[in-house]
């Protein structure tokens, strides 16, 4: 038996885009494969193991059966990492929670098949609404360099600390034009950086897919919204896209 840390990847309700980011590490993943034993990773291999040093969980929980599977993984894992925004906050999957009931949601998506047993779904939950999470890697999708860095920190026995500064920092370093200069409301001043500001760099407003900084200045944002004739409701809708609640975000570092 190898003494290398046993690492496993699991997915729940998601697009699997985050594990694709990991698979796309290419050269680095070969080095990573020498440092750890990847014992389960459906996207790239077959196999199973009884216990894990680190379990990476992708996706949100949308079915009761998934809760048991997740709890079982937690029980067999020393460290559990929620990676990708679906796992971290519920992500886009949580949009349905704003609807009055699941029956309506199922009917809209599945039409006449809505009653099929495998389509049974309940309001979306983030991973930490079911089990304890040791570390979070936010983003939609995750930034693969950051993923690699977190793995490295964990292997070194360190506590990874995500950037606690807003996306504006990423934008300024790239000398991107500020979208506010074009009267476009961007969540950048509140959103957690680390993405390289890919959206604003391409003229698209930040939607805070990585959540907010620990201590976002909501009052300041409120003043800016008034200046640009936006309402609080409109901005809340922007935060809803990735199920980010600036009020409680500080708990997830």
């Amino acid at each position, binding site marked *: 038996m190898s003494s290398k840390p046993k690492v496993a990847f699991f997915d729940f309700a998601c697009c699997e885009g985050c594990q694709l980011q990991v698979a796309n590490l290419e050269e680095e993943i070969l080095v990573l494969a020498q440092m750890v034993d990847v014992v389960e990773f459906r996207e790239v291999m077959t196999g199973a193991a009884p216990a894990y040093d680190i379990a990476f969980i992708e996706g949100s929980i949308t079915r009761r059966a998934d809760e048991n599977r997740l709890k079982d993984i937690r029980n067999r894992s020393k460290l559990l990492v929620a990676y990708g925004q679906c796992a971290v906050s519920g992500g886009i999957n949580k949009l349905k929670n704003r609807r009055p009931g699941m029956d309506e949601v199922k009917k809209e998506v599945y039409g006449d098949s809505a009653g099929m047993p495998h389509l049974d779904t309940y309001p979306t939950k983030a991973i930490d609404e079911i089990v304890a999470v040791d570390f979070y890697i936010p983003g939609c999708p995750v930034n693969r360099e950051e993923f690699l860095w977190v*793995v490295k920190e964990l292997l070194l026995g360190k506590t990874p600390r995500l950037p606690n500064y807003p996306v504006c920092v990423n934008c300024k370093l790239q000398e991107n034009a500020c979208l506010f200069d074009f009267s476009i409301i961007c969540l950048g*001043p509140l959103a957690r950086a680390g993405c390289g500001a890919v959206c604003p760099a391409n003229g698209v407003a930040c939607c805070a897919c990585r959540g907010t900084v620990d201590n976002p*200045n909501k009052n300041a944002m409120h003043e800016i919204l008034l200046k640009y004739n936006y309402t609080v409701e409109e901005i809340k809708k922007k935060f809803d896209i990735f199920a980010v609640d600036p009020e409680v975000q500080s708990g997830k570092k």
Partner: protein
Amino acid sequence: MEILKISKEDFNSFIDEKRTASAPLEGPGDSISGHAEKWKTIGVVKKGANFVFAELNSAAELCLDYDVTVLPPKKYFLPPKETLLKFIPKKAESYAAVNHPGPIALIGVHHYDLAAIHLMDRAFSEGERDEHYMKRRENSVLIGIYPTKHYKYRFSSSVIRGQFRKAADIMLVAMNGFFVVEILTEKGKNYLQGAELQENDFSLADIEAAANKIKDDQKIPLPIELVPEFLEKNHDHSAWDYFGGKCFSCASCVLVCPTCYCFDVRDEVDLTLEAGKRVRTWDSCMLEDFALTGEGFNFRAGRGARFRHRIYRKGKHLFEKYGYFGCVGCGRCAGSCTAGIAGPVKVLKYMLEHKQ
């Protein structure tokens, strides 16, 4: 040293020659040691609606008629991220400094940015000399230009004096079809060898008028000599809470500031744990974690305290240390602040209007 002139066409073709030159350099720097090296040539170019300093692919890209660049040229001397040294973990003798800057020419640096570089030069050479910064500076030629375009947040004439001439190697004044070329250093003179320089026939009065053509809309609302004491007396002014309440702590004001030089240093180790490097990155006193200590105490946890600290650095600490106002009046902070609160003119005006 001397004042000459060059036509704009000749200037551009000279820049391109230097950029692609393969002849041994007579320019500055001890890293060259006789090898043929091209001049990395940086100039002001357009990026979308803004201007930035960037490496030129052709002198035709140069936009010397600009208001302000997003980032100041400090990024070439103190890069946002740089490797200071490399090492093998657990092998102390393996530490090796990384520093191989080639010759670099910066073209079109406004006078306030030169004043800022002069202040940075002092900060990185006095006391603990920073070889990484100083090597890059030694291997650089700075070609300045007096602004030809108005920028609504600029107030440099109320805060800088002649100190920018201490950083510049060459100053240009744009005059119809020509640049008047003032050569200030040997470095500058060497760089210009081979350029089609002509005798200057513009009158000094005309040159002076062209150099000072652009007037600032804003100014520091009190004599700058009085600012340190004014700030000292107003340590508990309501302005700090007022502006702190509006501040996102996004650090835009600091990142775009030509005189902000705070940095963070950390070690990065390879995934294999067999090689590592010490990396220096820009940091910012406006960010929440800047003053966070190892055991969790943050000695500048409040936004107001951070906001005050930044203004104190510019108006008091640096002023007292170097004898120059720590802000050069470029106005970038005011222009880049989403909340519209970062400009020192605005802050000092507010403090004067709300006397405690």
